């Protein structure tokens, strides 16, 4: 390709030069090395069609072991009761709710990428949206397990849904927990619909390249007879836009409603109006952490560096920085309001029950260290300090470093939920009710088990479904633009 800063010579017009933008304004391409549509299909489909790599088999084996662990722990819980967990008065919401909020927060990045960035016309989203949406679906599945098993008598889980039962009782819609049931189940369903609609054209690509009978049948069935007709594309694009438009308020509402589970109660540390936006920002932050954790190794292992470029990673780092800073602002604001309100319970909770560490704040103010001061400071370091590295281009472009930080982001956000759930509950209004919460091994194994569920599904997704939206990536290349020389446009041609 001609260097744009020099101007492009137009064939047939020796004295005419088309001036490109100055070099500093030129954007890095979304697909490197001027790859065309054919290469994109071949590259992405080869992940499915090629031989199964060793790392896939090994990680799948490990994931299945953890998946088995997940279901064994559920079985143990069902047969024995929630007493096997560390939940005890007054901490009735233990790891189950922490893990629920953590997993569902992770899902939010997928919807942000697929819906909000679509509405904002961020074309770089095309390389990562499919994998991120898959992550959303599997994360919401992991999240959904926890409230379900937390109710103790799992076989009565259907009482949460407005189904007529023999007692003649209906769910109580004045409780935010009921709102949550609707928010999470809608979120899961709409995410699946959106994901599947995006998949239809790509399944058609797989169908038309399929060599084996089973693949032809499978991909053929699920691609619904898609032909790529422009009359179809026209309806398809409209439906895609509408789904993006509907998913945007959805994703903002889901974590807002999750936060209302806390904020509607009277407990210090929970009873704040800042919770909905603060939870949404935290959710997107943790979700981008997980997207980076998943995609940085994958682009290398699956040789997708031309499609998921360094620019994509950098942009994701910037979103992480932005949302991480919002989270940091929310932490600061919580403390300010606790102090400014003059409410002694709020002040006690934030300063003596969360922040007071045994080294600086404790001795300085002559207060006993908070029981979980280290959880609080892990949260602050991982969520406020760590993302600040992303101000620097050197940090954003070092894949190993970004991967390392993305893991810290995930850890930090888990601790945020830990701090919110545990510290508020274990020091409630009456000191005679205070206790110290500690998880049991079953808590920990159940949490690890959900990773097995997540990665089993995610690895199967990599193996059988195009992990990058083929049609959408093609659509953002210059080869797809009918007004670009690479798309076949000729100078002077009018449309």
């Amino acid at each position, binding site marked *: 390709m001609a260097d744009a800063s020099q101007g492009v010579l137009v064939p047939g017009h020796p004295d005419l030069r088309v001036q490109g933008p100055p070099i500093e304004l030129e954007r890095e391409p979304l697909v490197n090395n001027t790859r065309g549509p054919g290469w994109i299909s071949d590259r992405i489909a080869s992940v499915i069609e090629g031989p199964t790599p060793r790392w896939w088999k090994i990680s799948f084996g490990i994931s299945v072991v953890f998946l088995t662990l997940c279901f064994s722990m559920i079985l143990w819980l069902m047969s024995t009761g929630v007493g096997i967990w560390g939940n005890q008065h007054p901490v009735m919401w233990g790891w189950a709710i922490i893990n629920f909020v953590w997993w569902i927060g992770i899902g939010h990045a997928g919807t942000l990428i697929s819906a909000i960035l679509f509405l904002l016309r961020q074309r770089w989203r095309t390389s990562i949206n499919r994998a991120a949406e898959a992550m959303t679906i599997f994360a919401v599945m992991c999240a959904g397990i926890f409230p379900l098993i937390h109710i103790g008598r799992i076989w009565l889980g259907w009482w949460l849904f407005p189904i007529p039962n023999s007692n003649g009782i209906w769910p109580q819609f004045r409780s935010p927990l009921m709102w949550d049931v609707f928010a999470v189940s809608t979120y899961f*369903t709409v995410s699946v619909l959106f994901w599947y609609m995006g998949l239809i054209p790509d399944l058609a690509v797989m169908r038309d390249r399929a060599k084996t009978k089973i693949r032809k049948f499978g991909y053929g069935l699920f691609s619904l007879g898609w032909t790529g*007709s422009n009359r179809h594309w026209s309806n398809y694009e*409209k439906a895609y836009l*509408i789904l993006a438009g*509907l998913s945007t*308020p959805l994703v903002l509402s889901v974590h807002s409603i999750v936060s209302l589970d806390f904020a509607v109660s009277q407990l210090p540390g929970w009873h704040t109006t800042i919770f909905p936006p603060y939870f949404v920002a935290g959710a997107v932050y943790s979700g981008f952490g997980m997207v980076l954790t998943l995609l940085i190794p994958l682009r290398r292992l699956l040789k997708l560096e031309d499609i998921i470029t360094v620019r994509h990673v950098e942009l994701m780092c910037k979103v992480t920085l932005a949302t991480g800073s919002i989270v940091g602002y929310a932490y600061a604001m919580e403390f300010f309001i606790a102090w400014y309100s003059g409410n002694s319970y709020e002040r006690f909770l934030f300063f003596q029950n969360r922040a007071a560490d045994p080294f600086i704040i404790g001795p300085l103010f002559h207060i006993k260290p908070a029981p979980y001061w280290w959880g609080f400071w892990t949260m602050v370091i991982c969520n406020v300090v760590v993302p600040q590295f992303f101000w620097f281009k050197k940090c954003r472009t070092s894949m190993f470093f970004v991967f390392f930080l993305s893991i810290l982001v995930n850890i930090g956000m888990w601790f945020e939920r830990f701090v919110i759930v545990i510290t508020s509950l274990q020091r409630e209004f009456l000191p005679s009710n205070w206790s110290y919460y500690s998880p049991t091994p079953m808590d920990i194994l159940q949490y690890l088990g959900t990773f097995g569920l997540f990665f089993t599904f995610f690895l199967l997704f990599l193996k059988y479904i195009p992990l990058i939206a083929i049609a959408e990536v093609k659509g953002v290349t210059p080869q797809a633009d009918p*007004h670009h020389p690479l*798309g076949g446009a000729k100078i002077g041609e009018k449309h």
Partner: protein
Amino acid sequence: MPANAYAIMAEFETPAATLSAAYKVREAGFRNWDVFSPFPVHGMDQAMGLKNSKVGWFSFVGGCTGYTTGMLMIWFMNAIDYKIKIGGKPMFSPFSAFPPSYELTILFGSFGALLGMLFLNRLPRLHHPLLKNRRFALAPHDRFYVVIETSDAKYSENETRRMLESLGSRHIELVEE
């Protein structure tokens, strides 16, 4: 012309060539024709003279149904069929009923969008003459096709073929029914 021909299919290699071909085919007055591409080509709807898609209406009706369903359901369950007085709160309040109704708006609206899209496109469909064609398997890959059905009033095998050739297609073939 073979008796069982479904359409004539012309292959193009770039979106620009396809776009200008689409303009010409439309100007020539064809009605039963279509363009097939691996991705939606920018400006193709205008070139083909397609109107704004009607999917929005399906979604709108879905959304309205969802919101009404949510509000009526909660009102019936908590204020009519089984009343429980809690903390002196009203039996029905649009505020506490709003979050579930809002979610149902989105849920039904999304089903409206997806199912409306499938309905307008007459999908799923298990069989299509073009999908039997070997060459057409490149359509989702990297080729572009302008397809004119033989059922079109203006279709005549020789003239249509000549027109498609003049538009710059290098591969033209008849597609069997």
